[in-house]
């Protein structure tokens, strides 16, 4: 087996199979997600409604509500996943996850504040406040982590305290939000239920652009993880790279949160899942995490919809259920046992 896996052709073949399998899975989940719901539709009906152009009830149902929801799940899943992979590579911490360092909750708080002040604000303002909240929370966590010493475990602890604080502030503001507060409450657990095309068309180009930027920067991410000397010998400044990547991570998270609310633990799950499948190499991990993030988010949402067909269970609930054990396992990793 060892000899086999050293053979470059074998590796290529293995990756090839993984990707084909993933795309197939994503396609099936996509169709399944479109057919799921109070009105049961078969796969062939779903496919037909894309091919036909006549205005039937089924077609409108699929295009206007289910397609938006499905695309949003994929997009949010991918964005969170990319943010998670980047953050773990930047911090070299197997427990790091934007939602554990306050970024996700910070974006959520920004959104809640803007909704409390201007209930019907335009989308750019809404998005801007999410980004601002995320950046502020990340900055606070970063400075606190510097002052308590950045060991992997302590960074997460500091992040958790910030998270608790942001959560409390969010809850306190929600008390004054009589209008649409139910929607927000669902949204605060993280849910892809409230998908609408208007938001999607506005935010998706931003997210896609950020993901593409991340892919083009894989080499720089690797350079950053090699350390200062190598980076400066290549004429790159580590400080600038670090700031740039953190900014991209916060943007990815904030834009995702503005779509689906703060979904905790998700990036952590995807990162460990993709490490498990394709190994630690960043050049493989990042592209694969885009796919696996979409698959996992769509799968979670479909699962919740399939099990609880009569009510809307936020996907964030299921993800927290899976994510907490993963956090515990990642805190027990060999790398941390010696220098916790």
């Amino acid at each position, binding site marked *: 087996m060892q000899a086999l896996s050293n053979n470059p052709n074998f590796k290529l073949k293995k990756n090839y199979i993984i990707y084909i399998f993933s795309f197939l899975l994503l396609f099936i989940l996509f169709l399944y997600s479109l057919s799921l719901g109070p009105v049961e539709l078969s796969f062939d009906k779903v496919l037909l409604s894309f091919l036909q152009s006549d205005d039937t009830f089924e077609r409108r149902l699929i295009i206007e509500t289910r397609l938006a929801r499905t695309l949003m799940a994929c997009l949010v899943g991918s964005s969170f996943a990319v943010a998670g992979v980047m953050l773990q590579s930047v911090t070299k911490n197997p427990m790091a996850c934007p939602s554990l360092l306050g970024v996700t909750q910070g974006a959520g708080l920004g959104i809640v504040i803007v909704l409390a002040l201007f209930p019907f604000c335009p989308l750019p303002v809404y998005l801007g406040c999410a980004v601002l909240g995320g950046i502020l929370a990340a900055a606070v966590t970063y400075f606190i982590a510097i002052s308590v010493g950045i060991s992997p475990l*302590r960074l997460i602890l500091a992040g958790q305290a910030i998270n608790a604080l942001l959560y409390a*502030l969010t*809850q306190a503001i929600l008390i004054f939000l009589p209008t649409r507060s139910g929607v927000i409450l669902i949204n605060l657990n993280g849910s892809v239920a409230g998908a609408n095309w208007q938001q999607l068309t506005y935010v998706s180009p931003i997210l896609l652009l950020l993901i593409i930027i991340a892919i083009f920067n894989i080499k720089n991410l690797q350079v950053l993880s090699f350390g200062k000397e190598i980076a400066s010998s290549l004429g790159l400044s580590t400080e600038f790279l670090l700031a740039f990547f953190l900014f991209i991570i916060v943007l990815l998270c904030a834009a995702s949160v503005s779509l689906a609310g703060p979904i905790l*633990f998700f990036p952590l799950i995807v990162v460990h899942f993709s490490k498990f499948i394709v190994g630690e190499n960043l050049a493989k991990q990042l592209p694969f995490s885009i796919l696996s993030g979409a698959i996992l988010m769509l799968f979670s949402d479909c699962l919740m919809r399939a099990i609880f067909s009569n009510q809307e269970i936020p996907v964030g609930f299921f993800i927290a259920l899976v*994510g907490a054990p993963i956090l515990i396992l990642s805190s027990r990793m060999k790398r941390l*046992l010696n220098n916790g």
Partner: protein
Amino acid sequence: MDKAIYKNTRLLILFIFLLLLSYFYLMIGVTSFSISDVWNVLTKKIDVAGADFIVSDVRLPRVIIGTLCGAMFALSGSLLQCVLRNPMAAPDILGVNSACSLFILLFTFLIPNDFDLNNLIYAVFGGFIGFFVTILASLDNKKINQTRLIIVGVAVGALFKACCQFVIMQSDERQSSLVSFLTGTLYHSSWNSVQQIIYPACFLIFITFFFYRQLDILQLNEESAASIGFKVTKWKVIIILLALMLASIAVSGSGSLGFIGLIAPNLARILFGSSHKFNLFGSCFIGATLTLFSDFIGRIVFPPFEIPAGIVSIIIGAPYFLYLMKNIGRYK
């Protein structure tokens, strides 16, 4: 001897402060009353219009529940911090509180019963489960890594909290009130709930003060404790059980109040030193004061809206948690 006098004075000051705070609590709110009005209501001298109901049926139970639950969380935190030798250990941080909440919610949801003793049994059961899950998950070669213990506790807490939210979503009635139960609130306090927890609470608080010698010995290293013929493991188990019972009953009274069990023991250690003779009393009073204060602030900041006490206590407590992390050199 002199030190004892200082500590006694501090305790007395704390106690007087707690009494004054309680009195203020009874006076001030959306409708405020004068000092004499409250006094007349409490002593049942004259029937003041409106004050009777608001003071004695709404605010007084809240004061009693707040005091008892705050004291119990604080004592539970003191015991856990001593046994686990970790100044950041506390029932809410180790996932005990959210596990209690889950079991209380589950059983009130599955077996609809009015608040009675059953509820306490479920809560204690839940607390035990939460604690043991946390301890088992953070064991590493039969030793507990202190920093990992806290992270695992937080993760276990998040897990049970997600389950709680799920249970709440399944129930249609009193949804909003159940949500506030998750973050800890005194809003639902009534004479009914006072009756439910006052006897076990007073009994447990009373019992805890008798263990100060054992706690002092447990603070030593294990070899010295064993060398004077002290059964370390036996007492550890007893004290952990006591701590879990305290926390569970407090949760059934007020929901999961965050950070009270973390801050109060630490402040008590600063004020009264690490000997548990005074420290336990101090922790108890500080916990009660913090809880009442949180609820008081939550009630008067934006009337008529109420911010749950648990939210206020997190906003006060989280910065302190960070400060604690910064100052504890032991966790490198």
